[in-house]
């Protein structure tokens, strides 16, 4: 399949690769990442499909999915990938592209049961979901 990308699409691919330090083209679509992911049931699209969209430079298509926000960086996919792609870092790169526009995915003032939560949960969540 010949992949045609506009310059804008190319910019997105480059940004993901730059932030993650990973090569998205290394993916062979084996699906190991999706098979081992404990959160796939909650995801709009499988991690492996996110890869395909990154390769295509489909920024808009990816950003409307919840996959990267459901990923909790447990690294199961990263340790199992036969091509040694650190998929967790790709997810982080996509999150960062959103967050760096000064976006918060969690409402800091609206968190419920704060007094019940251990600090590391709050710190972790804010690091992954606030810009």
């Amino acid at each position, binding site marked *: 399949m010949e992949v045609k990308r506009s310059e804008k699409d190319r910019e997105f691919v480059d940004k993901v690769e730059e*932030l993650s330090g990973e090569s998205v083209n290394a993916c062979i679509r084996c699906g190991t990442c999706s098979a081992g992911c404990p959160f796939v049931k909650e995801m709009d699209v499988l991690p492996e499909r996110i890869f395909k969209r990154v390769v295509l430079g489909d920024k808009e298509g990816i950003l409307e999915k919840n996959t990267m926000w459901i990923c909790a960086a*447990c690294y*199961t996919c990263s340790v199992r990938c036969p091509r040694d792609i650190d998929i967790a870092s790709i997810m982080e790169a996509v999150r960062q592209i959103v967050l760096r526009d000064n976006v918060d995915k969690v409402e800091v003032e609206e968190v419920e049961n704060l007094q019940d*939560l*251990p600090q590391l949960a709050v710190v*972790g969540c804010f690091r992954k979901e606030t810009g």
Partner: protein
Amino acid sequence: MEDGLLYYPGCTLKTKASDYEESAKAVMEKLGRPLVEMDDWYCCGAVQSLSTDDIMHQIAPIRTLCCAQEQGETEVVTLCDMCFNVLRRANTRAKENEDDLETMNEFLDEDPDYEGNVETYHLFEILRDMKDEIEKAVKRPLDDLKIAPYYGCMLLRPSEVAIDDTEDPQIMEDMLELLGAEVIENPKRTECCGSYHTVNRSDIVEKRVEDIVGRAVEDGADAIALSCPLCQFNLDYHQRATEFEVPVFYLTELMALAFGLDIGKEIGMKKHRVEPNALLKEKGYME
């Protein structure tokens, strides 16, 4: 530091996970390697920042390693799995990337430079090498307890910081056997508990807990043993959304129990949502 170990607590050990700190301190005292808290330390950030260009979020763990360096020490031990993961990864990044270390040091500004000579350890790595001492310290073997070990993510992944085999770890199984407990094989023991989603997506965590605890119960476990304060919170607190009532112990609480320490009164087991007392009374470990 002669026999003592320089100890980095992390924020949660001072509040929600104080049971872990108390029991670990008591156990290590008993084993002759007391935990000595660092003079200064900072919140590690709980999750490692994965962006190549993001040095800012590496500063906090490096600052803590600098504190160890300034105390004249070369080793730091953590109890919390998340702190362990972040400290070790930030340290690895600093040691292996000269440019990154330089940027960090420039950022640290008026503070002393980090020289990259501190090593980070999780308590389990220390305990793994103390099998004889542990065996000798057991006064009250846990032979009536069936325990399912649970590792979660941060001790095992990614591979470069793992303290054991990423897919088939044995470190906790070995220790539980030394304590005399019956180890329940737990195929879910390396699956994520839902982590920080507990803040705003508890539905996700509840499903993970249902799955992980459910399997342990199915396999006959009386209780679960672990070391991560976030896993402990999730597996314990979110059982309220399930039919289960399985105590979730820090491994050091079980050690303290096996060592005959005053568990439940002076040390540990005060902040569990699922009260372990009923189980421990039933099995004769508590009056």
